[in-house]
């Protein structure tokens, strides 16, 4: 596949690619300082040389650092954090309703009628006939 070959070609010359990218960045900033007419600027700050380059880089760094700091305040947590939702909670006796619970209150006909049939752990305080 040609596309794979192209990506392979670029990956093998990563150093050159990086240098080209840096050259583009430098050219962009230089062009902004010397070539671009600032008349369309909305605020005085934008007239600062290469203002938007600084804005882009600073913004990116700010976003990453702030977000990571925010995430480590306790926002980022283990993947199974919510996973004890119904099942595990039923085991510790705090489930809302299990099928047995519902049956015992006569809301549903017993499934097959077999008393030994296990539909899930029985909550401790579930029965109060």
């Amino acid at each position: 596949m040609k596309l794979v070959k192209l990506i392979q070609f670029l990956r093998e010359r990563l150093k050159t690619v990086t240098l080209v990218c840096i050259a583009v960045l430098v050219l962009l900033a230089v062009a902004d300082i010397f070539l671009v007419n600032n008349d369309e600027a909305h605020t005085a700050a934008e007239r600062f040389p290469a203002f938007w380059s600084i804005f882009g880089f600073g913004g990116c760094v700010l976003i990453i650092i702030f977000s990571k700091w925010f995430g480590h305040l306790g926002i980022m947590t283990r993947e199974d954090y919510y996973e004890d939702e119904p099942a595990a909670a039923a085991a510790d006796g705090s489930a809302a309703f299990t099928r047995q619970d519902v049956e015992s209150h006569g809301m549903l006909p017993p499934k097959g009628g077999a008393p030994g049939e296990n539909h899930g752990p029985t909550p401790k305080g579930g029965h109060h006939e």
Partner: protein
Amino acid sequence: MNSFWLHPSLILILGALVLPLVPARLKRGYLLLIPILLFARILTMAHGEFGQVHVLNKWPMVFGRVDALSSVFGYIMSLMCILGTLYGLHVKEDAQHIASWFYVAGSVGCIYAGDFITLFLFWELMAFSSVFLIWFRRRRESLWAGYRYLLVHVAGGVALLGGMVWHCKTQGSWAFDASFCQLAVHHATPATYLIMIGFILNAAVPPLHAWLPDAYGEATFNGSVFMCAFTTKTAVYALCRGFAGTEILVVLGVIMALYGVVYAVLENDCRRLLAYHIISQVGYMVAGVGLGTQMAINGACAHAFAHILYKGLLFMGCGAVLHMTGESKFTELGGLWKKMPWTFVFTLIGGLSISAFPLFSGFVSKSMIVSAGFEEHKYWVGFLLLLASAGTFLHTGLKVPYFIWFGKNQPKKETWDRAAEPPWNMNAAMIVASALCIFIGCYTPYLYKMLPYPDLAAEYHPYTAYHIFETLQILLFTGLGFFLLLKKLVPDPTISLDMDWFYRKGWRVVLWFARKPVQLVDTWVGELYRVAGLVPLMLTARISGMFDNEVIDGAVDGLAGTIRGIGRRLRFVQRGQMQQSLAFAFAVAAALIIAYLVYSNVLAQ
């Protein structure tokens, strides 16, 4: 009711109902035909008010209010319906297509609704049909995510309904038009605020947004492609119609734009990351609606239009990865460029479009809102939205492609073995979406002519040297920051707590309440019931039992004997052939109807 006007949603609803009857070999053609018919219908609709009905001579319903604002949204929704259906064309299960078509029908119905009752009906149709797109993934998590999605939307629907009824009872008008907007913006009442809460919940404005990443990350691979387009953008439409110029929306929009960006840094699941970027992008539109100038409304509509295409494309790319590899987490993916290079290119085009790169669709739409902010001298709006766009490129343009298709992470062997380019129809949908993203970016009149204020849009030129340089500098220097801080951005296998914590963990408080105080009361009431209710009840029961034994049983036994006798004779009529029985039933029914007609005619004479 005026002369017949074919509602575009009707095409989808009838099409969906007929779908199961279509033979398998015609199915693919049929699946494409219906959305194309919808698109054609929307293209041919003249402006005006159609489909007016008076329900019970009391409530006026307007099913078809076609104007510039509804046309642009109707156009893009129906276009996205074609792309979404094409993307999921190989899905065998009819029910999935039916759910998505009902969902689109709901969205299109909302867009053309001219009054609150119609709007509400279609609004709820959207919620109740889209939930199936989550459930059809059939994971245990999807079931719960679906229920949460539904509950949140029902809550939003109740707020909307409450506000509507309150508003209409006090103002005496069910119309959802410019006069409502005037009232809502300049003389807001609690009723209009309730309606706004209903709308901004669907637009995923924090703190009412957590349903979005929760649901979109959990839906089927093609379900998310539909979901990312319709719910939030229909809400943006409703906000444009009813709340253009509401100051608070500017603040909320800017918060949204940044909120989504912050959470996207932390996210490990690519589709949840994209979902957070929906929040961020819809933030631009909400801010545009809040600014309320003609330029800003143009911008909000243009951005919604462009957003539906590029976000659909991004969800298609990540959906293709999920569909082919079974994985959507960055920590389980990496280096896929060898296996899915074209999916990478399409996703990158989506990423460049959302980041507003010159020549891509976001560039010509997002900048309208930012310019409107600067023009209104709300500099903080302009700067903060530009900051958010740096964040957008950081994640969607760089993080998503980098960590799925490159990166140092090596996926598991089975993930790697399964990875391959997706089926032709998924590729075709991505090609068309990519082409449209580039076309919109390169040829601005296509989009600008459709906007609500086309004359103003024609005067707007995004391709000025200053704007191009401004954008390129922001984006490319963001790229520099990305590669310098790459180590910090390597995803962790974690999830991030969001506002859904309150209803996912908050239920424990409710349960505690149910177990302790409520149960105490329950026991007490039970005891009271036993003493005051049960004892007299038993006495009555004993008396009625005697009555039952002696009188009723005699009668019932006699009746049962008679019925058994009839049954024994009828048994010979019933021969177990379903069709014959049905034919017999219809024949009897027909005979009865004819007899009735003849009898009534005789009486009439």
